[in-house]
């Protein structure tokens, strides 16, 4: 019946088991139908389209709210997504980020206040970008690492490896000064007696931070390394100055808001 085996196979694929000539006729009819369909003016362009022929079936209509929702979602996605990402980042940063805070509150008539909040990671990344004067590549060059014959590095190394204790105590009519090491912290306490009112300076620096600061080359302080070491410390107050006319506080925590 078939001229060749190949023709038979083609006819089978088309689902038509009849003679090959009949198969060709059927294909021609389908093509003609298609042409007719595409030559027609689309029904939705007729003004009386609804009355003549409804372009949408009930089944299609059910999807309108879904399509509208998806369209609206895609429209607002570029605006909404960054906000969501920002919120996520904010909450994540609140958990992990370490912030260095500086407060200067003056009790004079003007009532000057200074509040500075710096994310430590930001400072770590930005400082190497500054190349100005003595600061370059996150390191600051200082000229007194060997002050009057005192090797600061050796002195620090001696303090670091020694046991906890009070190394310097000065008690005079003018001031009480003490320098100590306690639980991995380097503590300096100054109580000025000359001031008319209470005046006190307290500095608390983790030994790891000092070690990191001194890890740079000769006559240099590695500020970035110091900040990195500081970031690994828990919440703590680093500097506290209470004077009769001002209060200065420098502390570390994970809050990004002012108190």
């Amino acid at each position, binding site marked *: 019946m078939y001229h060749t085996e190949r023709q038979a196979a083609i006819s089978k694929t088309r689902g038509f088991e009849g003679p090959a000539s009949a198969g060709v006729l059927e294909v021609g009819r389908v093509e003609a139908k298609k042409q007719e369909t595409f030559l027609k003016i689309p029904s939705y362009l007729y003004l009386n389209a609804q009355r003549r022929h409804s372009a949408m079936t009930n089944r299609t209509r059910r999807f309108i709210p879904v399509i509208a929702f998806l369209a609206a979602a895609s*429209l607002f996605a*570029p605006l909404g997504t960054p906000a969501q990402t920002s919120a996520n980042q904010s909450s994540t940063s609140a958990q992990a980020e370490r912030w260095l805070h500086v407060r200067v509150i003056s009790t004079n008539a003007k009532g000057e206040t200074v509040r500075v909040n710096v994310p430590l*990671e*930001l400072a770590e990344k*930005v400082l190497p*970008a*500054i190349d100005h004067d003595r600061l370059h590549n996150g390191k600051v060059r200082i000229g007194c690492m060997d002050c009057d014959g005192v090797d600061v590095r050796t002195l620090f190394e001696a303090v670091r490896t020694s046991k906890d204790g009070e190394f310097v105590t000065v008690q005079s009519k003018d001031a009480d000064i003490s320098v100590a090491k306690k639980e991995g912290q380097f503590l300096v306490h100054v109580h000025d007696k000359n001031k008319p009112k209470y005046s006190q300076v307290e500095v608390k620096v983790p030994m790891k931070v000092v070690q990191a600061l001194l890890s740079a080359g000769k006559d240099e302080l590695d500020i970035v390394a110091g900040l990195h070491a500081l970031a690994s410390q828990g919440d703590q107050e680093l500097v506290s100055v209470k004077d009769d006319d001002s209060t200065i506080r420098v502390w570390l925590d994970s809050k990004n808001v002012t108190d």
Partner: protein
Amino acid sequence: MVLLGKLALGFGATVVLAGAYTFREGLLRVDVDESRGNGSHVHVWLPAAAVPMAMHFVPRHQLERAGQHAGQMMPLVHAVAKELQRYPEAELVEVRDGENYVRIRTHNGTFLVDVDEPGETVHVACPLATIDDVSRELAAFAPGA
């Protein structure tokens, strides 16, 4: 009538989409008000996304001039802007000295500077992404870049 309605819908949707695209990065705002005699008042509001686009139309010699003046600072500005994008809500600096007040912060990914002093008020708001883009472009025109 239905056809007109469909055309209007298409036009409206295009306008909304174009608006959403233009303002996707927020608004660049500069407000300067001098309340002194003959004081100037400057108010500039621009879609931030337009700024990097507009930079492509700036004559090259002008960009080179800008690069010579500010190019050296641009790597620093770029580093700060890039890092600050990780802190979309942060109070960075607040200084109050009598009637003078300065506040620098980020809000919704926008860098905000507010300065209030007797007789003068300055408010600047610029999306961090825009600062990042512009500083990167200008850094390319810095001498020796």
